[in-house]
């Protein structure tokens, strides 16, 4: 089960190595959009975990299903070389991503795993939800720590 869920990550590694395209690449806006959707769904899951809103099993499950699927979005066309923050103003993606593609990919896979864990328990009550949301947050933060420019 878990293995089938992280399928697609191997394709990511290969695709990340694909050669560069030009500046003002539409990939930048697209990948930022995918991250906004992560936050959009976490607003429900994290909002419930933090007590900003009432826990609702069906809503939590829907948001966790969404996050599960969005984190499976194939990354191959989202990270062309030359779209780092030293080249393009609009991005916070650090050049280090392209120097450490294996590690960057591993951090994506870690997020896929954490979101699978969250999908499994999101409908099972607040006590089950909380640590699983925490694990997703850790996976997000581990990548932002190394690969995202400070605001």
């Amino acid at each position: 089960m878990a293995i089938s869920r992280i399928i697609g990550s191997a394709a990511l590694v290969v695709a990340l190595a694909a050669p560069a395209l030009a500046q003002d690449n539409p990939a930048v806006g697209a990948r930022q959009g995918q991250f906004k959707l992560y936050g959009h769904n976490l607003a429900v899951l994290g909002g419930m975990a933090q007590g900003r809103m009432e826990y609702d099993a069906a809503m939590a499950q829907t948001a966790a299903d969404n996050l599960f699927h969005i984190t499976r979005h194939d990354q191959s066309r989202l990270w062309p070389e030359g779209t780092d923050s030293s080249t393009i103003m609009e991005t916070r993606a650090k050049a280090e991503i392209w120097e450490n593609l294996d590690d960057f990919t591993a951090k994506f896979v870690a997020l896929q795993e954490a979101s699978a864990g969250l999908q499994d328990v999101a409908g099972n009550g607040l006590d089950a939800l909380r640590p699983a949301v925490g694990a997703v947050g850790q996976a997000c933060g581990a990548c932002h720590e190394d690969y995202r420019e400070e605001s």
Partner: protein
Amino acid sequence: MKRAAYLVLALGLLGGAAAWFVTRPVTLPATVSARLGGDAQAGERIFLAGGCASCHMGTEDGADHKVLRGGAEFQTQFGTFYAPNISPDPDHGIGGWTQAEFLNAVMRGVSPAGQHYYPAFPYASYAKADPQDMADLYAYMMTLPADATPSRAHDLGFPFNIRRSVGVWKALFVDHDWVVTGDLTAQETEGRYLAEALAHCAECHTPRNALGGIDTARWLQGAPNPSGSGRIPPIAGEAFSWSAFDISAYLESGFTPSFDVAGGSMAKVIANLGQLDKPELDAIAAYILRAGRE
């Protein structure tokens, strides 16, 4: 003529003597440390709030926060600093240090050999701490695993490679008084202690002047990132509108109010502070909001 020359010489000597005096390393009174017993268990909280591991742990992915072998790199306008090994190894760490030597390093920026430390080590913040807390921290750190990795020498040009010159910086910028003063609530006062003396939020979130001194007039109003191209966001002033709940939740989990997740050097701050008790994070949040109203 001759007399004028003597006068100049005398003044020069006097100036030199004054400079020598001003830049001398000043330690804590010996009586301060001698009286204190350390409680290792209480020291863990100081270790987390002070964020010692953020700088002194190993740099590899998944490095243990309790193995303080050093190695982190800090690029500044003055050169590159490397955090030293401060594990209890007797040869490469601080295992051979007395409690008094430790307190002088952390609270006065003075080494056991009587030299100044560079302010990349945020002792100007720790100077405001309660010596008892630092004695507890010493006891705690001596229980951590020893590691024999040698410390790396800093990479600095003249005149910054002369430690004595740090004395000028200290004389100008080390101030043992609180920045946010006035009629604080008990919670704000607790938060001020945690934020100003231990967690050193201002070392990153406040801009510095040309000499590297923190510009207290723009306290917590955001700053360029010293080693990178990004900016460290403001947490005071008009550009910052989070609630106490938002700040405390962020320090606990890294989630912003819009459910983005903290990154950069803030990630390690949160890895440490997230282990404190919730009322302590609420106190920091109360202080931050208070500082923003000053």
